């Protein structure tokens, strides 16, 4: 313990002796921190937003077409499959959900832009969305819908207009009334969202055959065994239907973006690049520290200092750089997350577990630089000093 304390004090004195060099080393670690935090932040935001539609759907079991990969690009599922599912004694009800893209005209600028529309029986309560069930009564009227208050601003200041009483918009070339707001959020697949009844959905999306649905949300009777019911349904239904629990459905959505879209890989690649840049900078600093002080280190060895002591000095330097760089790196990332959330409308959240993970990564990065730099210590041979 005593020698660790003395070694780290020596490391601290060496680091702080040249403030400019220390500053550049710390800046390198800060930079690596920022890169890693931003990549992880975008990575998580992507998955949070990409699965937001899936997470908005209630139901114990989800029926999905075998041909559908993701909720943002679905193939139809015959409505008859939902009726078949009712044959299972544990199934209480099955709600059809419709998903599609329509063209929205910005009421202020008249610019047209594609928007995601979700449709289901307003009384089914199938959407776990703030503001959805309260508006059930109004959604049953002809050509009415709810607007996602967290859509990108390109769709127009719909919230402000509602407050003024200007509720009319043009969607899919139909004059439609916005009767309220809900909150879902933009994702990589959809810049904005609308929510409406199943009947109004078919008024907006004309090319859809009425007997095809996109998602079937199965509600089981109270106390039913979800996985047993899932197995029975999968056996009961033809192969064109995938039966998933709600968690599996969300995981499937996440896996789509992680694997087939290669987006997960891109962000992890960015994390790796950040760590490599940080590794090289820290290694450079540590290596030159050792190389410039070889005869001094050799003198210490001659005086009776052990190799372990000198290793402890170099590793202390590495870990001090990690700690010194992480704190400002975390603060800067915090601020940049806010800036990016405002710019992208993605849910950028710097959670404590992410901070802890990055802390571990940065420490490992600095320790690895130290481990490579200490190889130079072997050149400090006290027998060559005379």
């Amino acid at each position: 313990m005593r020698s660790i304390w003395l070694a780290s004090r020596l490391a601290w004195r060496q680091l702080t002796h040249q403030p400019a060099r220390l500053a550049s080393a710390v800046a390198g670690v800060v930079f690596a921190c920022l890169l890693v935090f931003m990549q992880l932040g975008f990575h998580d935001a992507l998955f949070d937003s990409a699965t937001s539609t899936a997470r908005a759907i209630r139901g114990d079991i989800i029926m999905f077409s075998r041909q559908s990969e993701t909720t943002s690009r679905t193939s139809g599922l015959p409505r008859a499959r939902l009726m078949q599912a009712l044959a299972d004694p544990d199934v209480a009800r099955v709600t059809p959900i419709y998903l599609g893209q329509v063209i929205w005209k910005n009421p202020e600028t008249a610019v047209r832009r594609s928007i995601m529309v979700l449709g289901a029986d307003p009384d089914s309560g199938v959407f776990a969305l703030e503001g959805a069930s309260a508006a059930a009564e109004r959604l049953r009227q002809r050509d009415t819908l709810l607007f996602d208050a967290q859509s990108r601003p390109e769709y127009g200041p719909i919230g402000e207009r509602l407050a003024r009483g200007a509720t009319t918009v043009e969607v899919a070339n139909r004059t439609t009334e916005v009767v309220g707001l809900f909150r879902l959020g933009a994702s990589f697949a959809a810049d904005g969202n609308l929510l409406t009844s199943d009947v109004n959905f078919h008024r907006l999306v004309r090319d859809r055959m009425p007997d095809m649905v996109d998602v079937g949300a199965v509600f089981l009777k109270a106390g039913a065994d979800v996985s047993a019911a899932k197995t029975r349904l999968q056996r009961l239904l033809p192969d064109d239907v995938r039966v998933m629990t709600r968690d599996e459905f969300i995981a499937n959505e996440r896996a789509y973006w992680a694997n087939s879209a290669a987006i997960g890989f891109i962000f992890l690649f960015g994390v790796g690049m950040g760590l490599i840049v940080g590794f090289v900078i820290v290694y450079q600093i540590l290596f030159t520290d050792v190389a410039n002080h070889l005869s001094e280190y050799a003198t210490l060895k001659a005086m009776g200092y052990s190799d372990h002591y000198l290793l402890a000095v170099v590793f202390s330097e590495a870990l001090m750089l990690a700690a010194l760089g992480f704190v400002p790196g975390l603060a800067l990332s915090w601020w940049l997350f806010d800036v990016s959330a405002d710019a992208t409308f993605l849910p950028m959240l710097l959670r404590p577990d992410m901070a802890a993970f990055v802390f571990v990564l940065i420490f490992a990065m600095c320790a690895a630089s130290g481990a490579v730099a200490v190889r130079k210590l072997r050149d400090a041979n006290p027998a060559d000093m005379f």
Partner: protein
Amino acid sequence: MMPAIEIKGLEHWFGKGELRRQILFDIDLSTAPGEIVILTGPSGSGKTTLLTLIGALRAVEQGSLRLFGRELRGASDDDRIAVRRRIGFIFQQHNLLGFLSARQNVEMALELDPTIDAGERRSLASVMLAKVGLGERLDHPPSKLSGGQKQRVAVARALVGNPDLVLADEPTASLDKVTGQEVATLIERLARERGASILLVTHDPRILGIADRIIAMEDGRIVNAAENPCD
């Protein structure tokens, strides 16, 4: 009384295979505690190799080398590190740590001893620096000291831990005549105060006067071992 250094039949080689070359031949040497011995000889005579072997900086290959009664042949790395802690080293270059003050450099020699606490280290180092005439420059970094002052800090560092043996290799080579003589006298005085033996390798004829005994080496052998005629 046990000799500080006791060498019998020491031989040493450098290189491997075809290139293997013998550097030291049948060295016999012993020094009494407190004795000051100067080792001279032309370059390549093997005196520096002998010094590194005595300093436990190289492993002994053949023959016997006892330091303070302890056999170094076959000693482990840890044994050799432990022996080195009883030796004060002074090099041709001062080799002070540039990021430490003069006193912190001297304290480095004491930090190896866990029985000395921080306050004691501080005062011992300050006293030692005062003795080498640097009492006013305790907190100066090496870059703010002259060549002679730096070498005096190195002398203070070598002697502050009360070593049983001081090994010095050309300690005056990088100094001018006056400063060199001052440093040599300083080493002699401090070592005699503490009863430490000194083995000093030098070419510098001006400092031979401090020796009790002068040993000349040539081609890896000791060619004479005489009492210092200057005494």
